[in-house]
């Protein structure tokens, strides 16, 4: 069985502009593999092909790419998903390309830094630890699992147009994770930092983020909760 690929190639040192390069792989009939495995085999054929990868099991979030128009993690996307069609592999959209499938995620991380992704607690430090009830801990489910692969934010038009001002779905999912955390005491400060026309309210709820999240999370829902908190604080 022959697998056909078209891979985005761009090396700013030698290429004047990006181009798509065709590759094919011979694999045993009836077998399947992840897109990352295919990319690793392609790299054996063409060592100049550059992409990021690390854990190979959907935990580290390094190998976020765009496959046939949809963002996802190469390591947990089976080639069989594409039903024998040619697989077009591109870097995550909207971000500056460093080389081939590697993008510069500086803007993504800058937005993440803005939401202060750490617990802030100005109460007296407890002797052992800040305790949470099972119910309080349950609020964090569906939020803490984000691995920051950037698949959601780079699928979001609002983030494409305003990556310097809109926090993006991933950052806002994390923001809500700290807003709802019973151990965090900086709710007011966090909401004040988000209360402008861009940071949260550029989300128009088109749910691209939900569609592409490889961990099955729902950033749109978290953003809705943040909007409600901002509204309740304002009226």
């Amino acid at each position, binding site marked *: 069985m022959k697998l056909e690929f078209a891979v985005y190639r761009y090396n700013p040192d030698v290429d004047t502009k990006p181009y798509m390069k065709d590759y094919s792989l011979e694999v045993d009939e009836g077998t399947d593999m992840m897109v990352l495995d295919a990319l690793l085999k392609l790299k054996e054929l063409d060592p100049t092909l550059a992409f990021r990868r690390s854990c190979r099991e959907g935990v580290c979030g390094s190998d976020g790419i765009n496959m046939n128009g949809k963002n996802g993690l190469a390591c947990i996307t089976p080639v069989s998903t594409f039903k024998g069609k040619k697989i077009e592999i591109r870097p995550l959209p909207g971000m500056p390309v460093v080389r081939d499938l590697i993008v510069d995620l500086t803007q993504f991380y800058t937005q993440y830094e803005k939401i202060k992704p750490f617990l802030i607690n100005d109460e007296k430090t407890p002797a052992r630890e800040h305790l949470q009830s099972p119910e309080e801990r349950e609020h964090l489910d569906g939020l803490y699992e984000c691995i920051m692969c950037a698949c959601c934010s780079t699928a979001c*038009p*609002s983030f494409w*147009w*305003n990556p310097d*001002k809109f926090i993006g779905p991933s950052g806002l999912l994390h923001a809500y994770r700290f807003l709802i955390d019973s151990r965090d005491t900086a709710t007011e400060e966090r909401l*004040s*930092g*988000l*209360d*402008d*026309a*861009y*940071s*949260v*309210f*550029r989300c128009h709820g088109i749910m691209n983020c939900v569609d592409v999240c490889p961990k099955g999370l729902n950033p749109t829902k978290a953003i809705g909760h943040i*909007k409600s908190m*901002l*509204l309740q*604080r*304002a*009226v």
Partner: protein
Amino acid sequence: MVTNAASLGRSGVHDFILIRASAVVLACYTIFLVGFIACSSPLTYDAWHGLFSALPMKVFTLLALVAVLVHAWIGIWQVLTDYVKCVSLRGVLQFVFVVAAFSYLAAGILIVWGV
């Protein structure tokens, strides 16, 4: 925090409330007009004139025109800040659209109060 001076609201929350409140007014106005047209068969000039002669309808229409201004101002600002990155061009376009929206409001007031 990112500041904005060209939008209508004072903050993101203010814009959010204004755009939804104006949408509710416009939806009510549209449903009412469609309902009136559907229930007034055949629709005569007298019936139409009578509808717009009543003070409550004039106020409702004025409210809808203000809602159009508010909704368009914020909506256009959001679209322009997404797609037009040249600040001077965006400023000119925003000015033109807001002037047009105000013109609709002024024309609407004169027409409705002329009935």
